[in-house]
């Protein structure tokens, strides 16, 4: 009977669709976990800098930041382990099949990783360096990192750098750091501009980057105006203020 054939065919379809939907659900959950872990690392990085900066005059602010970056990088091994566990779910042509589910977590991870990297080394993490963190011990990648996710993840970095610069501006050495970050974000913006015609969402993110950059510029400007008025070297200014508000 015809009917029987159709039933059997649809039973096969059901299995395939259920299998796909279940894998999709698993990857959505995994991506959500990765996103949350990465977000927490970003919070942690901001927090570490803030807490340890209160250590007093003897700690070098650069050391504090480097130390925070290293701690963040270590914490991100948790995310790397998750990706290593997903290797089978994403092998072969599956990565691209589930790219839409995987992409948000991946970009958030790259945002966190690049922030740790910047804090630790003061540079932009490269594509190969990111790919390396997504590979097993023998260097075989769990999946090929798409350039898009790399660039989109990096372009979120500038927002975090803005937060980092502005909330640090009142701390010892924060003014100099804000200047460094201002230059760094300006060059990120220029570099990424090249890629906007290739990646649609990047233009939107670049607009956010410009906003972040202007916020940093405004903050750096405010410091410059004040320093000019009082004609006191920045580091001395820090100390005078620290004397007024010691906590």
């Amino acid at each position, binding site marked *: 009977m*015809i*009917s029987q*054939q*159709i*039933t059997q*065919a*649809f*039973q096969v*379809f*059901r299995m*395939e*669709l*259920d299998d796909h*939907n279940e894998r999709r659900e698993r990857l959505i959950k995994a991506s959500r976990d990765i996103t949350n872990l990465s977000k927490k690392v970003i919070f942690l990085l901001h927090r570490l800098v803030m807490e340890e900066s209160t250590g007093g005059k003897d700690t070098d602010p650069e050391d504090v930041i480097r130390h925070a970056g290293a701690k963040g990088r270590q914490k991100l091994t948790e995310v790397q382990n998750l990706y290593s566990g997903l290797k089978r779910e994403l092998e*072969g*042509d*599956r*990565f*691209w*099949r*589930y*790219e839409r589910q995987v992409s948000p977590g991946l970009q958030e991870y790259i945002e966190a990783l690049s922030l740790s990297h910047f804090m630790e080394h003061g540079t*932009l993490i*490269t*594509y190969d360096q990111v790919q390396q963190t997504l590979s097993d011990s023998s260097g075989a990648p769990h999946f090929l990192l798409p*350039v898009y996710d*790399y*660039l989109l993840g990096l372009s979120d970095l500038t927002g975090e750098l803005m937060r980092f610069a502005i909330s640090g501006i009142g701390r010892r050495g924060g003014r100099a750091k804000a200047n460094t970050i201002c230059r760094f974000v300006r060059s990120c913006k220029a*570099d990424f501009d*090249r*890629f906007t015609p*290739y*990646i649609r969402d990047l233009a939107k993110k670049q607009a956010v980057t410009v906003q972040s950059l202007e916020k940093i510029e405004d903050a750096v400007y405010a410091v410059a105006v004040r320093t000019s008025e009082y004609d006191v070297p920045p580091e001395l200014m820090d100390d005078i203020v620290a004397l007024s508000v010691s906590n």
Partner: protein
Amino acid sequence: MDSATLDQLNELLDSDVTLREKIKDEVAELDKKTRIMAGTLNKIHSTPPDLILNLLDVVRPTITSCRDNMVNLAAIIPPNQFWRWKDMWSNSLRASIFSAALVEYLSNRTLITLPQVCEILGIDDSWKDRLTLPVEDYLHGIISLVNELSRLAINSVTMGNFEEPLKISVFVKDIFAGFSMLNLKNDLLRRRFDSLKYDIKKIEEVVYDVSLRKLAPTSTSTTS
């Protein structure tokens, strides 16, 4: 970023752009064919039953010629990137599946199977990671088939063919029962399946009109 990195990224992005252009051209070709097939098959609504087979014979070579486009596509897609690019051709592919399924139904009164579609369109099993025929696309093609058959049920009666709706009704109810077994997510396929209910209802009304007026010989044969 140093200029080596910039160059590397640029190269990667450039190659995607070129690839996209190539796929686009090939899909435009395929698309043209699906439009020609749809144009010819559209005539079933005004063709008397005895001339339908001739009409199908006109369409068949065009369906078969889609194989060239499939071969070309399979040659350009890089390994493992099937899912990355498939959205570019899935509409055209679904249109081809629809044509193949309609020809099959009108020729043999059977539902074309997924492997049959692959064979007709020349989609090779060994291309799996570059070009394959996903269940979703097959199901979309089948839903389009039902949409078309509900119109055919109406127009057959207008042309004085009162048995066609009864045949269509039996066929379509089977398909509907098949779809009911699937756990569809809240996506396009689900919405199109919901729309199937209207087609079924419309066909049932035609069968009702024909049965009520005793216009077809064996209306009792529709109980399954």
